[in-house]
């Protein structure tokens, strides 16, 4: 059985004034139809860049190597024209910042209809009725009124729903959500996540959810991929990772989640130190200098991902010895 998305040895480099920076290093993962994969990592861990690379959305100075197959077809080296046929139709993306993701000069409905008219060749009228339907599905009140509204007339949560509607219009097989709820407050966040969950159930769309909120992942994703400094450090089923994290970074992240039971007076456990700069990476594990378990090989050799359980892999020297 071949996976819907099969990403092998993806590497993303950026040319900068200070030489090449490697933002994503040797990333491999599979996405099956209808599943939900969470990608977790802190800022700069390469989670967004790897997804942008998959859709050919890297900045001009970025370059991706490796193989990304969608239904067995390599999409990393497609021509722009071929890619445009896939993007928005089969593979869609919801961006982090819904506030600026819609052009201020076009009415909401027109912007949404563009995608349908382009990919499905629908007439304006047909596209409009489909858009209204979709706005209804993402629970936007009074869709007919909103259709004619401009983006700045909607609230943040509403705009994020519009962005999701835009991505879901052509019923894509893969929906990549890049921190869809970071710009929103918690109640709206819960609504958006419930919406995504509902969409996943009803349409069978596979979702890749990029976030740094482990709570969000627990609620929505079957599998989790933890990234650190451009590398995958651990991947497995959500339940396995939450109950028995194998990589010290994952364990640290889970410890840092505030609980309601905890004593508010005590400090929240944190992971000491800063993630390493991507420009000057020496050999060894990127997490070594922040790791409480670091020992001899950690600073000399980059650990490889190894199986640590059923469908559960992690990259740590401690696990091999």
């Amino acid at each position, binding site marked *: 059985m071949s996976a819907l998305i099969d990403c092998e040895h993806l590497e993303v480099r950026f040319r900068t004034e200070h030489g090449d920076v490697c933002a994503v290093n040797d990333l491999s993962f599979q996405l099956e139809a209808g599943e939900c994969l969470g990608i977790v990592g802190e800022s700069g861990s390469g989670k967004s860049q790897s997804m942008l690379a998959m859709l050919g959305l890297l900045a001009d100075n970025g370059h991706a190597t490796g193989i990304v197959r969608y239904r067995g077809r390599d999409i990393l080296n497609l021509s722009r024209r071929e890619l445009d046929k896939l*993007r*928005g139709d089969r593979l869609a993306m919801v961006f982090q910042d819904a506030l600026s993701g819609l*052009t*201020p000069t076009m*009415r909401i409905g027109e912007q949404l209809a*563009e995608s349908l008219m382009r990919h499905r060749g629908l007439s304006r009228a047909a596209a409009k009725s489909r858009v209204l339907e979709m706005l209804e599905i993402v629970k936007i009140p009074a869709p007919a009124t909103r259709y004619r509204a*401009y983006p700045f007339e909607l609230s943040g949560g509403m705009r994020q729903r519009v962005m999701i509607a835009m991505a879901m219009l052509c019923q894509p097989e893969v929906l990549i959500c890049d921190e869809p709820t970071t710009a929103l407050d918690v109640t709206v966040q819960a609504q958006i996540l419930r919406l995504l969950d509902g969409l996943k159930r009803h349409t069978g769309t596979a979702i890749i959810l990029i976030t740094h909120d482990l709570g969000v992942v627990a609620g929505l994703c079957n599998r989790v991929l933890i990234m650190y400094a451009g590398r995958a450090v651990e991947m497995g089923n959500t339940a396995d990772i939450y109950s028995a994290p194998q990589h010290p970074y994952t364990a640290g992240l889970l410890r840092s989640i505030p609980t309601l039971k905890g004593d508010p007076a005590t400090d929240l456990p944190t992971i000491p130190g800063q993630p390493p700069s991507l420009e000057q990476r020496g050999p060894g594990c990127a997490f070594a200098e922040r790791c409480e378990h670091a020992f001899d090989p950690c600073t000399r050799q980059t650990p490889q991902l190894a199986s640590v359980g059923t469908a559960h892999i992690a990259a740590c020297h401690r696990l091999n010895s």
Partner: protein
Amino acid sequence: MSAKPGELLGSGALASAAAGQASRSLWAQAARRFRRNRAAMGSVYILSLIAVTAVLVPMFWPHGIEDASWEKILAPPSFDDWHWFGTDANGRDLLVRVFYGGRISLTIGLLTTMVALSIGVTYGALAGFVGGRTDGFMMRFVDVLYSLPLLFFIILLVTVFGRNIYLVFVAIGAVEWLTMSRIVRGQTLTVKSKEFVESAVAIGMSRSAILARYIIPNVLGPVVVYVTLLIPTNIVIESYLSFIGLGVQEPLTSWGLLISQGSGQLDSAPWLIFFPATLLAITMFCFNFIGDGLRDALDPRDR
């Protein structure tokens, strides 16, 4: 002025959308702000008046622009015989010539600006959007043209192609698009990195559609302001081309040409320069006030 209830609700836009009224675009909001600007609105009225009279007066005035009268050479302004602005050295009525000249000056101002606008916006947006080496090459080409003195360029055109009024359009338009393309390119670079462009790419829009529907509408704000400043600039350029004899030719006339002719008789017949110069100055003021008003109305800080 007391605030209306809607204005107390901050943006007011949310309130109106909630009330189910037709929603206002950014342009509609800018138009509303513009209408509150008295100087700008006054200028719009005055300018419209000048434009309308420039069209109508020559049609209904008892004197034509070429009607010479030997009895009334250099007659000072008077209400006798419909010579309100006096007559020129050939005994032609000055009023009808001033308004007829206004037609030509305004037309040249508008048409040359259209030429500059269409070339400048297309070129600048393309350079900024494509970026990289193409952008560098296109903008260096603009720099080279920029370094040519305007007057030198126009004299060159006129000597090669001969004097005619269309050449004046082409010459001014061909020079003035340079600044426009720089403005548009700069704006395009800013807009290009906005997230909505990225999301347009992500839904599979083609590059040309993104340029035409997502980028250009969003760079038009500063362009509109610049246009209102470009029109008077072009009228002035036409005036000085006519003043030095390279622009509009007799028996046609324009404000520049009238001022040029009047300047020769400043001592004996000051009205010859007074009327066209006053109208030219009023027109300049109006365009500048309108430009000011538009800039305030479109100011992104107010959004």
